[in-house]
């Protein structure tokens, strides 16, 4: 099993790992028209690529990221220990999405705080950071921006688009907006739109941020402060919805911090409180509040059936000759299996090729980021099949 390089350390890639990767930046001068009617004139997208584009340019796979992730899908950064990409367990040499066979692209979405143009950047119109004035971007806008980057990379046709959660929405949207530019769509732990409950969670998160006195109507950069309290609460509530009741119970149960009750209403008593506060603190250090507002709104707005009177099957008529793989997790209550089945039904109604795996995993929504042999087995089989059908 030892791959070349297995006996080396440091810069040499370890078996199954991409080793060190480097982000790239692309400038776009032509304005991007947005769904809102506004446009972004002049913007940057940062991205990473892994593996090699083959001679026929047929082996490219786009990986779309979810709420708090980025273009850094896999591999590590040379100067940062423990900087594995967010889907490093799936993407790499010999992994289910095998970079020895595929050219994998991760793109940071517009409005993000990880390098692509976003609210922290300077608005050329005012000379000050965009802040809350950054245009509202949608899943469709992201997909269009991704398509423009592919133009620059000289990729007409993707072998597949893969995404989980909000990334899955982008993967679905690709099949509707640019069906001629991809072969297959793999959408994991996603939904055809957000339920009222989901929008409600997003709204609580947004209110936490907006009502933080340090938010300053989204122009906190000028005040030299960050609405950390709001971000913390936003992340805490988000985090609860990514876990299942069972996994939380197993991980924390009613474990206490101390042996005795402290009879305090404000100190941390239970380990779950400590965990959530830690997650909130960590998040508030690196995530931008305006980006959080933008991305949750993009989630709220995504609803491809809306343009077809709520008929999802009518929406997917545009994806007629595509092939889909849909995966859900039984304990995911944020994007439940029932939501994935709605997608499957819309595809089946159109007689579109689709496979659907409903993985009985205990980890809730987060399961899509974890390594489960059944889940990864299905994705590996799917990518193996796609690889067999590639033009060299």
């Amino acid at each position: 099993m030892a791959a070349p390089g297995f006996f080396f350390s440091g810069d040499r890639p370890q078996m199954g790992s991409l080793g060190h990767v480097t982000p790239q930046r692309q400038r776009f001068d032509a304005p991007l028209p947005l769904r809102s009617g506004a446009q972004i004139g002049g913007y940057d997208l940062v991205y990473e690529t892994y593996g090699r584009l083959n001679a026929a340019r047929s082996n490219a796979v786009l990986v779309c990221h979810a709420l708090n992730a980025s273009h850094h899908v896999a591999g590590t950064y040379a100067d940062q220990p423990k900087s594995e990409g967010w889907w490093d367990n799936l993407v790499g040499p010999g992994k289910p999405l095998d970079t020895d066979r595929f050219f994998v692209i991760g793109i940071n979405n517009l409005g993000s705080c990880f390098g692509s143009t976003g609210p922290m950047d300077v608005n050329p119109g005012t000379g000050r950071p965009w802040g809350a004035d950054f245009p509202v971007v949608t899943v469709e806008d992201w997909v269009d921006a991704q398509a423009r980057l592919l133009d620059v990379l000289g990729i007409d046709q993707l072998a597949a688009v893969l995404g989980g959660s909000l990334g899955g929405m982008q993967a679905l949207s690709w099949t509707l907006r640019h069906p001629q530019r991809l072969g297959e769509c793999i959408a994991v732990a996603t939904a055809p739109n957000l339920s009222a409950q989901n929008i409600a969670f997003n709204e609580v998160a947004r209110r936490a941020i907006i009502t933080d006195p340090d938010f300053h109507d989204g122009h906190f950069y000028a005040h030299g402060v960050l609405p950390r309290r709001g971000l913390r609460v936003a992340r805490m509530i988000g985090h609860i919805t990514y876990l299942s009741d069972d996994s939380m119970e197993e991980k924390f149960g009613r474990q206490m911090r101390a042996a005795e009750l402290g009879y305090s209403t404000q100190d941390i008593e239970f380990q779950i409180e400590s965990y959530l506060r830690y997650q909130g603190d960590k998040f508030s250090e690196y995530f931008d509040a305006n980006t959080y507002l933008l991305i949750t709104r993009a989630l709220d707005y995504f609803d491809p059936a809306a343009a077809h009177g709520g008929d999802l099957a009518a929406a997917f008529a545009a994806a007629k000759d595509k092939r889909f793989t849909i995966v859900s997790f039984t304990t995911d209550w944020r994007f439940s299996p029932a939501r994935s089945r709605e997608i499957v039904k819309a595809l089946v109604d159109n007689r579109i090729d689709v496979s659907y795996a409903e993985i009985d995993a205990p980890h809730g929504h987060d399961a899509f980021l974890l390594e489960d042999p059944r889940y990864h087995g299905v994705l590996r089989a799917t990518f193996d099949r796609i690889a067999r059908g590639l033009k060299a």
Partner: protein
Amino acid sequence: MSEVTTEMELIADLVPAGARVLDLGCGDGALLAHLQQAKGCSGYGVEIDDANVLACARRGVNVVQLNLEEGLALFGDRSFDVVLQLQTLQHLRNTEKMLRETARVGRMGILSFPNFAHWPNRLSVVQGRMPVTRTLPYQWYDTPNIRVGTFADFEVLARRNGLQVLDSFGFHAGRVVRRWPNLRASVAVFRIAGG
């Protein structure tokens, strides 16, 4: 196990070329793959078992992971030329509902199940013991076959649900049995259509 068996060949012969097929309880997808390659059929398999879903994905067969006990809400009326339900019926609690769903979703249904009235089974019961045979290989206390019926029983059930039996025959040891199938065949095969 994974190769096309004679029972599969027999069933495949009943499926028209180019048919849109829904295979309920499609196992590892061998029959669907065979129908796609040999007869230009298309469609989906339905499976509940993780290992079978993976096997289908490996074969490149469309598979939908679903518990058949929950019905076929995913599939529209008359949306398939053929609905296959091979060696599946005996595992389902809602036998009647599944039968009606099969007739709703497909223009034609093809079903197979173990025929409990096959003579060795009768002999075994006469001797006071539940049968253990190649077709019914389980002990009474660990069998996954929660519904055991006979060729003749199924005719009654089909009629009761207003289904039309287009054809029926037995199958045993690689041969079609048309004379006294209720006595002479270990497997019953029915071709049905909605009333």
